[in-house]
């Protein structure tokens, strides 16, 4: 029987949750790297026991850990993230130029085919790549060197490159997203990049339809349709059917379209999930009710999923990288909260139950479906 391994990054360590395909009984291991901020953990699709983890604190900086045995043992890898050439400046919160400074790795995206190749999205925004299993990291500097770089500015969480999506059909194509610059795409394996923000309308910036400057919170794609992207923006849920060349708003009948997380069902490319959050000044669910919203029509028509989720006095947030799906026949959906709960639904969102309730604030959730 298949098993499911859930990789959870929290403010104070990493946890690994495993279950068989029924997803009823869970084994919980951790904390790994107790006391450290674990922004993200992800397994290699090419070698599922090869895991990479981003470990950091404000005291001791950034580390990259690697496991070759499914998370039982770990080894620190290279952690030198040096911007290529002159780092230059971006816009600071007050509009003044501010030097680019490396702070941490937000997201690790292993290659589909090579367990030694991994992309890292970092703050201040840039993308790095290792091709030797994490020992050395080189910047793909064409992104930061895009002419719009000096106009990028940090969002509330810093100027982070938080989303990396590899195109399974085209190894030359990568999508990334930055708060608050927007989404970008490369069609030449990272040498050159173009902003893909046409159709975004952000009323919180001076020029709402600007080429860059949008606070994109997360982007998701179904691997069978790599030209179709779904985006949770600071406000607005958006969709692109042309690889990001244009976007349409699909918030539809959502109660509110602010939020962070967005993901796509493993087998139904038009079934998508978001977790509406009341507003950017409150950062908790509307009415104290934790509701995942599901659209089975690729957007606009949404249904609340509440069975098993707290429907009163719930004031947690669900962060951008804290939702994931498994690929079992009946798709499982998972998300973690800033209150330390990790919820799982073994039936595509119809029913939910907590796997674990009292972890540190959850920063990221990834799922591996193992044979």
């Amino acid at each position, binding site marked *: 029987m298949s098993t499911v391994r859930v990789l959870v990054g929290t403010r104070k360590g990493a946890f690994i949750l495993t279950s068989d395909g029924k997803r009823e009984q869970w084994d919980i291991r951790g904390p790994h790297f107790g*006391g*450290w901020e674990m922004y993200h953990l992800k397994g290699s699709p090419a070698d599922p026991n090869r895991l990479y983890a981003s470990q950091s*604190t*404000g*005291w*001791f*900086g*950034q*580390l990259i850990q690697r496991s070759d045995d499914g998370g039982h043992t770990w080894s*620190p890898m290279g*952690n*030198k993230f*040096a911007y290529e050439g002159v780092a230059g400046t971006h816009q600071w919160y007050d509009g003044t130029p501010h030097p680019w400074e490396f702070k941490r790795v937000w997201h690790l995206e292993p290659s589909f085919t090579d367990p030694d190749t991994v992309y890292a999205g970092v703050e201040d925004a840039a993308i790095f790549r290792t091709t030797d299993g994490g020992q050395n990291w080189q910047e793909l500097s064409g992104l930061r060197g895009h002419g719009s770089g000096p106009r990028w500015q940090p969002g509330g969480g810093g100027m982070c490159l938080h989303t990396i999506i590899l195109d399974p059909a085209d190894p030359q194509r990568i999508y990334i997203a930055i708060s608050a610059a927007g989404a970008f795409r490369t069609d030449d394996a990272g040498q050159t990049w173009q902003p893909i923000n046409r159709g975004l309308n952000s009323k919180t910036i001076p020029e709402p339809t600007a080429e860059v400057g949008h606070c994109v919170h997360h982007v998701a794609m179904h691997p069978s349709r790599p030209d179709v992207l779904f985006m949770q923006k600071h406000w607005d849920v958006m969709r692109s059917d042309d690889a990001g060349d244009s976007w349409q708003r699909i918030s539809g009948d959502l109660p509110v379209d602010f939020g962070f997380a967005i993901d796509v069902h493993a087998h139904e490319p038009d079934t998508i999930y978001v977790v509406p959050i009341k507003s950017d000044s409150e950062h908790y669910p509307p009415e104290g009710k934790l509701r995942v919203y599901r659209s089975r029509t690729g957007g606009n028509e949404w249904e609340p999923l509440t069975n098993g989720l707290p429907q009163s006095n719930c004031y947690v947030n669900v962060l951008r990288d804290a939702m994931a799906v498994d690929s079992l026949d009946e798709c499982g959906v998972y998300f973690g909260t800033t209150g330390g709960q990790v919820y799982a639904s073994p039936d595509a969102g119809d029913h939910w139950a907590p796997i674990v309730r009292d972890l540190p604030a959850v920063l990221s959730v990834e799922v591996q479906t193992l044979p």
Partner: protein
Amino acid sequence: MIRVELPAHLRNLARVAGEVQLEVAGPVTQRAIIDALEASYPALRGTIRDQVTLDRRPFVRFFACEEDLSHEPPDAPLPAAVASGAEPFLIVGAIAGG
């Protein structure tokens, strides 16, 4: 032998239990100690000082002989008691964050 005391997180990372003892060739300075420490424990690279600028990380402090040496130049000689191994060189995670 130079004695170095690490904060708990860095002891875990280096997989050491207590004080670290290091051979330092030449004058005993902050830079020489950290060079030797990173050579012996590569996992500590970047955790005490920035790997590009070599600046001390802001929330890391260096103490010895009941003095805060954090703002001393990295190539300044450390107290004789550190160089002789009579006193440890303390690498401290600053109390910050509440």
